[in-house]
């Protein structure tokens, strides 16, 4: 069973994000990039599918040379092949069109992606790829069982679990809890270094026009520290609280 895993390189979530001078992108300087954490679940699941059913795991990303690092991480975990797609991807739809065109050529039995990227939180690409390919899609998967014809997946729903059946080929998006991603090993990292990353260019005719445009990006306003009232009896405390709400917060 051949699996394609969609991965994205995102800023380490511990990084303090700054908006660049243009106002619509983050400033990449000093940012440490890592594989999107949800994509780690996707890679792990693909490796388990391979271990159980045989086949190949191909990791795929859209981006510039910098994105190779995410692919190498996946190769070091045990993926067989890596493809970096260069395309003029400006929004989730153009990204998905580029991916779908390459996936069509690769012809896998299964595509697994993270349920969303933790940088822009769009959560669209996996679903759009499924729609463009006209394949079944199961999102936010927490449990997966496959047979040669299809599979059964569990999904997180409000207050419970939904079990769905699907045929192959299909697109799945991985939720935390699907598995416990393995660490890349040292020998894995050394082997990954020697593997070739295949580059595929998708031209503008395929990616088409974006349907979304970012007009502004801002970081949340800094809030001042709170005040804790202590060392007072209840009456004095209530009085002080009312005073603060009235005079400082101007809420009452």
């Amino acid at each position: 069973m051949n699996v394609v895993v969609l991965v994205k390189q995102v800023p380490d979530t511990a990084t303090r994000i700054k908006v660049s001078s243009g106002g619509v992108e983050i400033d990449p300087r000093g940012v440490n990039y890592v594989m999107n954490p949800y994509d780690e679940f996707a890679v792990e699941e693909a490796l388990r599918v391979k271990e159980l059913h045989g086949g190949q795991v191909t990791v795929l990303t859209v981006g510039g040379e910098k994105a190779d690092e995410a692919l190498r991480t996946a190769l070091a975990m045990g993926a067989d092949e890596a493809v970096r797609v260069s395309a003029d991807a400006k929004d989730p739809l153009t990204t998905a069109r580029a991916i779908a065109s390459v996936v069509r050529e690769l012809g896998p039995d299964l595509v697994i992606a993270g349920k969303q990227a933790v940088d822009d939180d769009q959560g669209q690409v996996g679903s759009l790829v499924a729609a463009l390919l006209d394949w079944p899609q199961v999102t936010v998967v927490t449990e997966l069982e496959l047979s040669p014809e299809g599979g059964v997946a569990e999904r997180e729903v409000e207050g419970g679990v939904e079990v769905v059946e699907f045929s192959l080929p299909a697109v799945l998006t991985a939720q935390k809890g699907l598995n416990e991603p393995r660490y890349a090993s040292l020998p894995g990292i050394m082997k990954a270094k020697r593997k070739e990353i295949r580059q595929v260019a998708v031209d503008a005719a395929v990616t088409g026009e974006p349907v979304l445009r970012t007009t502004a990006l801002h970081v949340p306003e800094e809030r001042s520290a709170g005040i804790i009232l202590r060392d007072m009896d209840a009456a004095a405390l209530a009085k002080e609280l009312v005073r603060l709400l009235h005079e400082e917060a101007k809420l009452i």
Partner: protein
Amino acid sequence: MRNGSDPVSLSSTGPDYFDIDPLLSEEERSIRAMVHDFVAAEVMPTIGENWLKGVFPSDLIPKMAQLGIFGPTLPEKYGGAGISQVAYGLIMQELERGDSGLRSFASVQSALAMHAIFRYGSEDQRLEWLPRMTRGEVIGCFGLTEPDAGSDPGTMRTRARRSGKGWVLNGAKRWITNSPIADVAIVWARDDEEKIRGFIVPKGTPGMSAPEIETKISMRASVTGDIILEDVEVGEEMRLPEAKSLGAPLSCLTQARFGIACGAVGAAMDCFNEALAYAQDRIAFGRPIAQTQLMQERLVDMLSRISRSQLVALRLAQLKEQDAHTYAQVSMAKRDNVRAALEVARMGRELLGGNGITVEYRAMRHSANLETVDTYEGTYEIHTLIVGRDITGLNALG
């Protein structure tokens, strides 16, 4: 986000004030990230408690082995991954960011026990022991120091006498990291010709015991013990054939000291990251304490020491990669980086105020550990005299 930890809790591999990262290869950064993530997920949540209880988290041994971090610089045929010295140094840094005891465990396994067999053992010995040691199936320790021979190992009293086709070992070793849990000890002893010889002594060899030293108030998450040898018989095939003098164990120490010079940076980084976050968060007199001149000076002092240590560690690793380093350079790096880390840890502890004396914060645990690191593998003073001799040409070492 390993082991279900929250996506937002990934911590940084920094600080990196002098933008050193671009000097590392992509593969070196990957190796660092792997060990960093491992330590963040598997070590940090429980290390404080283990340290208090005086427990080495031995469940980490198979996990570390799976990552491939035992003997990682060795060639593949012995189970290694042939990684660079820079990458090895970064592994030590990330382990010690967790705890000096964890790094010590890995140092002893890789740089002392495995290195001794790799460098001074026969091909048969290498193939017998090294692959199992990379897999963590065999834990090693290194018996050089004695109760009455610490800084001057040349005065060791442990004896190796020829007996028929083999050897009989008698003596005692002290301050041996891992000895109570080790499956095999590399034991250094003086033969009848007063030459220092090395022996591979498996656990359970009659006459050998390894009691634990249980009263440490430093390095509590690491196992330390003695090795007692009473008429221990070993065959000639257990002798390391290429080890012919004190130079052999000393060259192993050079390996380990290199790892320590890199590792100490990690402990210091952890203290700095903790202190910076705390200072930005903690309010006193109506403002973050980071907005006071005293705390800013402390933070700048901490980061300056770390930046210097990082650069020294990186350059030393590069020299070592080309086999162009000297043991005196290793001494300077060990001496200075560990002392700097100890100072950084103490400053971090002070900055944290009363909170800093609890194990919920990391600075005092690191600080207590680094007291050991400052002393072991050549004390601060001994390294002063090694470098002093190197730069003056005059020997003040006894």
